[in-house]
């Protein structure tokens, strides 16, 4: 993944700062009631109704193997837009708190691997340093790609049953 400079929306998970390209953010909404979908991986929280559109929602903490936390009034759903096979898709991402929009220059972005980051390598496009703060820049397309996840989950489930 190429390092991308430009405007990033930054947000917080615990005490870690993250950023995603602002161009991929459709909107930010407060926490709302989510319809659970059985037989999906735990990081998929379910679906929400965004003004008549049904959009899947994932918990980023769970996706990144972090501990869960109770949702508060600062918990937000960032609705991101990705393009899969030339078709626009939307996905809600639950984060602890949205911070600000920052402008990150090319020279302020460093390769993620140098820091031995906790987040799996291909989820990151790099590390951005702005005003003394460090943000992990997420590769949204990789994060929300769970096309195969449902299948994966089903086969895991079968194994579980077989093991019992």
């Amino acid at each position, binding site marked *: 993944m190429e390092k991308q400079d430009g405007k990033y929306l930054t947000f917080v998970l615990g005490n870690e700062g993250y950023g995603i390209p602002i161009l991929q953010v459709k909107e930010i909404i407060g926490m709302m*009631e989510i*319809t*659970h*979908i*059985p*037989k*999906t991986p735990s990081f*998929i929280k*379910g*679906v*929400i*109704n965004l*003004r*008549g*559109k*049904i*959009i*899947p929602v994932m918990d980023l903490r769970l996706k990144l193997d972090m501990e869960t936390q109770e949702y508060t009034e600062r918990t937000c759903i960032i609705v991101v837009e990705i393009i899969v096979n030339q078709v626009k*898709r939307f996905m809600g991402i639950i984060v602890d708190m949205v911070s600000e929009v920052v402008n990150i220059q090319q020279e302020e972005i460093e390769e993620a691997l140098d820091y031995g980051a906790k987040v799996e390598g291909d989820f990151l496009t790099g590390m951005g340093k702005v005003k003394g703060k460090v943000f992990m820049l997420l590769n949204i397309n990789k994060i929300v790609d*769970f*096309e195969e*996840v*449902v*299948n994966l989950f*089903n086969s895991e*489930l*079968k194994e579980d*049953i077989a093991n019992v």
Partner: protein
Amino acid sequence: MSDEKDIDDIVKSFLEDDDKNRDQNENLVDEEFLNDFIQEATEHIENIEINALILEKEPGNEEVINSLFRSYHTVKGLAGFVDQDLIGKIAHQTETLLDGCRKKTIKANKNIVDIILTSSDYIKKICENISVAKDTNFLKEIESHLEVIFNAEKGIFNDITVELKPENPPKLGEILIEEKKINQEDVDKIIEKQKTEHPDLKFGQIAVKEKKVEAKDVIQATRIQQAKASISEDYMRISTDKVDSLVDMVGELVISQSLIEQFAISQLGTDNIFIANFNRMSRITKDLQNLAMFLRMVPLKSTFQKITRIARDTINELGKNIEFTTSGDETEIDRVITEKLLDPLVHLVKNAISHGIESAEDRIKAGKPPKGVIKVNAYNKRGSIYIEIIDDGGGINTERVYQKALEKGLIDTSKEYSDKEIQEFIMLPGFSTVEVANKISGRGVGMDVVKTEIQKIGGKVELNSIKGQGSSFVLKIPVNHAIMNGTVIDIEGSNYILPTINVKQILQPTSDQWIFMQGIRSMIKVREDIIPLVSIKKLFGKSREEEPVLIVIIELDQKYKALPVRNVVGRQEVVVKSVNEQFVNLGYVSGMSILGDGKVSLILDIENLFTSEGER
């Protein structure tokens, strides 16, 4: 006539200018022009095909002839701009022929229709691949086609001329008979009465007066009549995105409105001016919602036109004597579904033409009229669209199919198979054999593909074949993405939706109704029937089973299953939305919907409850 001359002059002067100052920049512009030309020409070709098919049915229709003439004329003009001389030539010659039809010096018949279609085919071929215009073989073909047109102008045909009969819109009485609302005898009586007693009244009025039919049936029949009589309607192109957004937003409007209504009733009660006015608004919103849903529905007309065209070509190619008819092309269906429907339909129709209908000699031997009949009928029944493909051919040769299935190891030799069961074998994957595959219908696509394609859009294929009498394939397709009557149920604290049409009964089970197997509550006895219980644990991958409070008996094809629920919340019209693609592999969900409280609920897939559930 004068404006046509003008265009010719303009074209000529353009070509001359073009020769004078050609440079590289212009070549680039040319390419752009060429793409525009191809796009525009393709649209005209589409128009030509549709009109040619109408002309075949209504040879006297001057409007259609004029429209065909104009289309070819425009294509000719456009071809001149982009230096496509070959297209220009074909279009010019065909245009001259049509001019003859216009002036009534040439009579439109089947041969003329053939020529019109062949011309459009050649133009289409060139548009698809410009370089084909340099192929010598292709040029020869064109040359001979131009000669055919030239001869046709003089009234010389290679084939025997087939006169075409005009087709009038059906009479109201005929429609009513077709709809089984009235019988022929009554129709005759009414016509008699119209002549003698009520010359001032219309057929429908007398029919209602004589209490032969109900007024609503007459209204329905006049609608059908109008739909059949109108040749073309005006359309405008709207992107599906816009329509989808409109449907979504209207759906939200309905939800917001019901939230306001609930609050207002709780605060003010029902007997006041606010609620009265509010109810009036609700009705408008409801109409608006129906209209919005309706926008996405298109008649099957264009699908049927495409099929008719393909069928016609296939029949000609195979030299068979077959009458191909369609009915019910006014039946409306979601646009997305029509797209997915085309390939399976084409396959079935081609199959019927190439394998269904026997040769004329065989038909005569079997005591049938030499001309075979293939009908494609569409109609709307109980919330589903039915499309039948019926032929009066030889039917499926069950012995042959049995033999083939035996070779493929699909047969359990110890078991007796009914004819119907044997016929079903052709729907199995990999059954498409030499017997089924040939140039026309083969191409590696078997009946199993038809079946899976139809299943993908939530439909079913039913096959009925009687040896010696013919076969019928019935496609049952849901009017999906539309409004469905749903029963909202509560399973372990979450709301789910069942199609009400599949809900047979709701009951509160008593302890003596349960049947346990190996310590697991697995069936319920309802009167004399023993009905298997759906395991929520297996269905939703839960760790334990909950004590059922209520049981919903669901029905599919006369089979029953008992679904344990906590509560039945209610029954309402729901707007079915497709499942997000990330979740399509979850078999138990067939759709989603936004309920009155604004929350998303999952629509359970009934078929899945009967098939895969319990196997895992």
